[in-house]
């Protein structure tokens, strides 16, 4: 039979189901036999439930969920410019060896799919602009009238 202090020392492992079957049974028997220990364990579990609720509250929304408003974003959400900040520091501390060009920074900030879409749209617009020019070539300018013969 475990003493009360021994049982208290096993609260964490018991809660996490990290005890051997024999140990688990011993803790369960001790809790069944002692109302004060039961209350202590219940309070301990309540605190861990609070921690779990905190963890769940700050988890990112599931994919496909509507985008949260800025005010609704979890306070543990990273700042939107975290990557930009890292890039700036790396550029500065490497003396310009890394992230020296604007393109490699932009590639990190904008999703690649968005960049590819933008490039495609630009190509389509360029193509449309070329083909929308009148299919008939503009008439050649009229030849200049021959100069009147001098008398």
């Amino acid at each position, binding site marked *: 039979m475990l003493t009360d202090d021994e049982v208290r*020392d096993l*609260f*964490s*492992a018991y809660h*996490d189901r*990290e005890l051997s079957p024999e140990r688990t049974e011993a803790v369960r028997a001790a809790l069944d036999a002692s109302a004060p220990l*039961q*209350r*202590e364990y*219940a*309070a*301990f579990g*309540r*605190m*861990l439930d*609070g*921690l*779990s*609720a*905190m*963890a769940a*509250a*700050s988890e*990112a929304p599931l994919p496909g969920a509507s985008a949260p408003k800025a005010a609704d974003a979890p*306070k*543990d*959400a*990273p*700042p939107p410019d*975290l*990557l930009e*900040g*890292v*890039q700036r*520091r*790396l550029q500065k*501390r490497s003396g310009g060896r*890394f*992230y020296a060009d604007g393109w*490699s920074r932009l*590639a*990190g900030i904008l999703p690649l799919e968005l960049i590819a879409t933008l490039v495609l749209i630009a190509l389509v617009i360029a193509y449309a602009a070329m083909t929308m020019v009148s299919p008939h070539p503009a008439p050649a300018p009229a030849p200049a009238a021959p100069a009147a013969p001098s008398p």
Partner: protein
Amino acid sequence: MTLDVEAERALVERLRRRDEAAFNLFVRAYQAKVFSLVQRMLGNRAEAEDLAQEVFITVFRSIDSFRGDARLGTWLYRVAINHCKNRIKYLDRRVTRGHDALDDEGGKALTEGGPVMSRPDRPDESMQGAEMARVIERALGLLEEEHRALVVLRDLEGLSYEEIMTITGLPEGTVKSRLHRARAALREAIERGLGYKLPE
């Protein structure tokens, strides 16, 4: 986001070549986890924003020391936790952390052992949702950094004992016993802040 082993290996290879595009992907994939961990450890958003950037810079510089015997995410947690511990010590030395995190009535009450709020008529209805979270956050800030790290990794980040052993370098028995002490210390800090025992 969790990469499968092959994708992770390919990413690490690119990171070792200091491939900027790969590093961008890496930061975007892990920034939420790193920031959440750092914010919970420091309890101060401005400090967390600064330190999260430093964590990624450390990875960029020292990815060659990643041997691959743990998952990349676990190694990243280790880098982040070490940064957090150093920053907490630094802030403690500057004696600013206590003021930043606790410079309000509740914080003062916690450090002085007084109640954060008056004892409710029905304690069972007092610890709900956001209120509970606030009390826990304040109490977390009072734990020593080793205890705080264990509670954050296990109870807030949901890591397994095995992952925590890898991150902290502690053997399993030590992780278990210290985690228990950390949770007990957290409970004491919460009850000290509340001014009454946690309801069953």
